[in-house]
């Protein structure tokens, strides 16, 4: 029965990806742009879900990792004129280091304390960017000389393919031996250790994977937008959006995070006529989901399927 459900899920995913690939033929360039950003957010949210949903670590500062990747790549590009792939690798590496640094307290601290440290990390990074404004552009942000493409469709396809690859990697990981072990450590770390698993090692690994993908996605986003700024990759509100997307889609589902990100960004766009109130409506909707469907959109559907 699980096998059947499994293959059906795969099948649905394939159809969704195909529909996504066909989008440039029937969607306006404007909405392609919205979706492009949404796909990068999808990767952010999936990476966050790997940490929270599986390893049980509440990271309030996903934008710390994203920002490191984004600014790392942007600065190398702007200062040294390196080609995009090199910059992306560099950004990913910086973000990986940041991830390890952030993971160290995660081995000792629990719950809200760890959450606070991640929050502080974001604030400190924000100040660092303002202080080193001659390199980072400060509050205004910095532009990068290179961009992925100036064509909306190409950009869209880059983002889609990138997200699909990350989705496959993260989903596969969550279903693999490591995913199982991570889930066990998230649920009860003492029992996991008593089964012979080195909890710290697996948590660190989860952090590294989450950090690397977040950083890479951050770098990609910069080269799509042509600029890096606090408002687009670091601000706490971006982090909040990522958390909302992930919880909205359904924690511990990985793929739900993508759905959450797309729903969130599309809703934001469609509700634009409401002006300031659109954030209000989106937040209220997310709050309602949390209160009434705590398993999230995808989680709710899956559970309904399991109950049958």
């Amino acid at each position, binding site marked *: 029965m699980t096998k059947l459900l499994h293959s059906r899920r795969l099948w649905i995913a394939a159809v969704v990806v195909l529909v996504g690939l066909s989008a440039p033929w029937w969607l306006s360039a404007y909405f392609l742009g919205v979706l492009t950003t949404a796909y990068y957010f999808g990767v952010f949210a999936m990476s966050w879900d790997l940490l929270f949903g599986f390893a049980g670590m509440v990271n309030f500062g996903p934008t710390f990792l994203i920002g490191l990747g984004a600014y790392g790549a942007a600065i190398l590009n702007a200062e040294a004129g390196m080609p995009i792939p090199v910059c992306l690798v560099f950004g990913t590496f910086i973000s990986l280091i940041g991830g390890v640094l952030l993971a160290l307290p995660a081995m000792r601290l629990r719950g809200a304390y760890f959450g606070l440290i991640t929050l502080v990390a974001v604030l400190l990074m924000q100040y660092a960017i303002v202080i080193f404004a001659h390199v980072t552009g400060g509050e205004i942000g910095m532009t990068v000389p290179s961009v992925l493409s100036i064509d909306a469709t190409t950009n869209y396809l880059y983002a889609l393919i990138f997200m699909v690859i990350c989705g496959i990697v993260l989903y596969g990981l969550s279903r693999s031996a490591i995913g199982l072990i991570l*889930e066990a450590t998230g649920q009860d770390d003492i029992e996991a250790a008593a089964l012979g698993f080195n909890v710290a090692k697996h948590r660190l690994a989860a952090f590294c994977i989450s950090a690397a993908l977040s950083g890479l996605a951050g770098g990609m986003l910069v080269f799509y937008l042509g600029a890096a700024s606090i408002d687009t990759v670091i601000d706490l509100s971006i982090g909040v959006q990522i958390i909302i997307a992930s919880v909205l889609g359904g924690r511990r589902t990985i793929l739900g995070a993508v759905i959450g990100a797309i729903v969130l960004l599309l809703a934001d766009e469609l509700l634009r006529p409401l002006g300031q109130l659109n954030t209000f409506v989106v937040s209220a909707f997310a709050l309602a989901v949390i209160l009434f469907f705590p398993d999230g959109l995808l989680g709710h559907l899956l559970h309904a399927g399991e109950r049958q």
Partner: protein
Amino acid sequence: MTEGTAPLLEVEHLSKRFGGLVAVKDIGFKIRAGEILGLIGPNGSGKSTVMKLLMGIERPNSGRISLAGVDIAGWPTHRIARQGIGIVFQHSRPLRRQTVLENIKLALLPDSLLRLVADPSVNDKAQAIATRVGLGAVMHRRPTTLPFADLRRLELAKALARDPQVVLVDEPFAGLTQAEVANFSELIDGFRQEGRAVLLVDHNVKGVAALVDRVLAMYLGEHIAEGSAEDVMQDPTVRRVYMGGKIESHARPEVELRSGEPLLDVRGVGVLYGKAQALDAVSIHVHEGEFVSVVGLNGAGKTTLFNAISGIVPHSGEIKWGGSDLRGRSVAEIARGGIVHCPESRELFGYMTVRENLDLGGHHLPAATRATQLAWLFELFPILEARQGQHARTLSGGEQQMLAIARALMLQPRLLILDEPTLGLAPVILEQLSKALHRLRETTPITVLLGEQNVTFALPHADRVYVLENSRIVWEGDPGRFAREMGTGYL
């Protein structure tokens, strides 16, 4: 299978302190391959800490733990597990979204970040283990759909996955029915056949007597007796720890209580903890002015019974208080209605003073009544008056217990429920406490429901006694008869 007589697990001079509290003091024992050792002791005796030390969940302050010659004391848990010790936890938290088989497979996975896909042999191994512990028929179901006994089997299965040389089992039979107990005994006996060394940790000898080769008894962190189950059961120190000394009784014949409607009437009450049956069709009653003791070993269900009465846990069946059903009332409502529960854990406000604790107990009384009540309690427990301004957590164990009782009495209860007041107290303190209870019974018309493991403490005050065993009431009568009928079979 058994290779010689060299012990597989050898523990020497093991000690553990938590702050000022010595939880484990110079404990040593040996278990050979193919041998089952029972480690017993009442709550707070340190037996669980010993288990945690063996598994590396806590680090010992001193001592040696050698497993087949390798000293593993202080190692991290996962290394100890890989070295060959498996543990069966009492409370299981399986992965809910995976099947039983996947849960067992988890335990078989290598501790590696690079092996993304499990070995194909893992599947066969997991199936073999599932069948072996009796989960063959349900291995493709999710743990949430399983009955309690099967969840325990799953824990056994996970502990077996790494083929450990030593298996630690925490309260092997808690929450199981008689038939299931027999079944689990067979499984654990199977470990012995395979040449594993087994440590069973339990509250009392009785539960594990049939299975163990030897028993080690602990009390307040120390080794008090060791030997065959028979010997330990007969050991005077063990008997004193569990039952107190000589049994005395002072039922009050002059009080004619048995007639009329009972004040508290518990009928066919059952309680489930998750899926474990913690209380099964228990019926007791207490008349106005009566002192009723419920005796039973730790884990028999006394606390659960009291929690059901005071509304802390939901129950099936009926609990009537002065003729009306208690169902649907909150804990606070029940307390204000006159049933005051003084729990085993005492639940004092540790960072508040003795006086503040007492005042909170009398919060709902008019000021004048509160003052007289307080004066009366200071008369009953003079030490509390002397300690008025001291923080509750700085009191000694005995003083804390007196404070807990006094605080409960501040509510002017119609029924006082005392759960295990002797827990962790030294014999001298027990005597003081006993005297206070005696005075209380002599000077006031109070109705008391006392839960105790320590029979010597429970009997002298009681007008009537119930014996609770394995979630059921197995005996009821007056304390005089208890010594004759239950005295020897109790432990």
